[in-house]
Structures are given as C-alpha cells and as structure tokens.
C-alpha cells in the first residue's frame, strides 16, 4: 500500500468535506456535482444560476492552482508532478461512458458527490442504496472489462 497516496487521499477528502459543509452553511445546498451542473446547463433557474456557474469555475480552477504551484501536490499514480491523469480510453469509449454517467446520474438523482459524500453524511437511506449499487456495478464493470475482455480500460 502506498501510504503517501492514501494520506493525500485523506487530506483531499477532508477538503471535499469542508467544501460540502461550506456550501450547506452558506447557501443551504447539497454538493451534488451532477445536480448543480445539469441544473445550470439545462434549466438555468433565474436567481439560482450564478452560484452554480461560480461553483463550476471554482471546480475547474482548483486543479489549476496545484498545477501553477508546480504539481507536487498532485496525486496521479506513478507521475509525481502531474495533477491530471490521462483518460482511460479513446473518444469512442468516453462517449459511451459519458452517456451512461449522464443518463444514470440524471434519472438516479445523483452521483458520487451528491449520494456518496453528502447523502451518506446525511444518513439518507436512498443515497446509501444508490452508492452501494453504483460502486458494486462499477467494480463489476471493471472486472468484466479488465479480466474477462482484457480490453480498453
């Protein structure tokens, strides 16, 4: 086990938690990325879009700050000074994955942040079940694609 990577994970996770607490404390909102962004792009609710757009900008700026600092704080496996890792496949695979992630989080009302972080912290039964399902299905997907098909990812 890579202790340093795990420690970075823990520190990053705590920062994500602080972000979720701040958004709840300041605007009273759940930090669900799929909900915040799909709402911004597809509904543009009046008086409720500016903070979503600002959140999106901040989300993109976070990793850029680390890159400007030289990248040492990044945690890409096997690449000490990288902040952003390479995609796991080509355009075709990513289009399929993107559609599945979009449709799935759209009809399932959330993703890793909304159900996983905020929902588990609220002890929401719906989020606990959703998180269990998407983690197990993702594990199964990796098992099939890597060990049965030995393919792309």
């Amino acid at each position, binding site marked *: 086990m890579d202790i340093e990577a*795990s420690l*970075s*994970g*823990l520190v990053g996770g705590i*920062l*994500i938690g*602080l972000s979720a*607490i701040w958004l*709840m*404390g*300041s*605007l*009273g909102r759940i*930090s669900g990325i799929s909900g915040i*962004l*799909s709402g911004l792009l*597809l509904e543009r609710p009046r008086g409720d879009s*500016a*903070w979503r*757009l*600002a959140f*999106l900008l*901040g989300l993109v700026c976070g*990793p850029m700050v680390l890159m400007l600092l030289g990248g040492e704080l*990044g*945690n*890409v496996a096997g690449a000490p000074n990288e*902040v*952003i890792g390479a995609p*796991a*496949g080509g355009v075709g*695979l*990513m*289009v*399929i*994955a*993107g*559609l599945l*992630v*979009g449709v799935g989080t759209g009809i*399932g*009302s959330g993703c*890793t*942040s909304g159900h*996983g*972080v*905020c*929902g588990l912290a609220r002890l929401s039964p*719906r989020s606990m079940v*959703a998180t269990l*399902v*998407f*983690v*197990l*299905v*993702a594990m199964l997907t*990796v*098992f099939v*694609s*890597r060990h049965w098909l030995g393919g792309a990812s």
Partner: protein
Amino acid sequence: MKALAGYLAGLLFGLGLAISGMTDPARVIDFLDVAGDWDPTLMFVLGGAVVTTFIGYRLVWRRQAPLFESRFQLPTRHDFDARLLGGAALFGVGWGLSGYCPGPAVASFVGLSAPLMAMLVAMVVGWWLARVVSR
C-alpha cells in the same frame, strides 16, 4: 455574495479532488479493480469526506438558516424506486468504463484531452436525455 460562496465551494472541491488524486482515472479504476492490484486511495477520499461532512453538517444545521439564503434545501424522499436503482446501475457502468464520475471529469477540464471533452459533452447529452425520459 452567493456567487462568491459558490466559487469558494467549487474551488475547495476542485482542490480536494486534485490533491486526493481523483483527477487520475487510473487511481479510480484501480480502486474499482478488486481482483487486480487494488488501490485503496478512493476509500480514504470518500471516508475523509463523509466523516468531515457528517460532523460539519450537524454543526451547520444548528443554525436557523444558511448565511446567504432563507432555508436549507434538503432532499425529502425516502422511497426506493426503479429509477434510483436503475440510474445508479447505469452510472456505475459508465464510471467503471471511464474512471470518471461527474466531479473529477469536470475538474480535469484543463487536461484538455479529446477523450475527456467527448466524455463531458456526452455527459451533458445524457443529463438532457434523462430529463426527456422523466417528463
């Protein structure tokens, strides 16, 4: 003020994702690959985030209202339906194939790779499709 609060939340979230290594799909897929060379990093990320949020939410909820809004907006549903389970399952397949869930996918934008851009566009199309189906 609300926009500034939103920006700060996004910035902290993006920093957290990058520092934890969640902007590296290989780490995420290696966590999901329980039959291979398992990478526990994601477990520490999710664990750290959930415990921190669990404590912080309860402190924040002692207040009558958030700082810049009149009330807390929390999900109220408690039922399990096919949409919740089916949606989570579809998301799981996409997550397993790419190693990207929505947060890290967006936060990785500055990587500016063609596969990631394709993923982001497809994800938005997916959100749109989900809304069409739900109507």
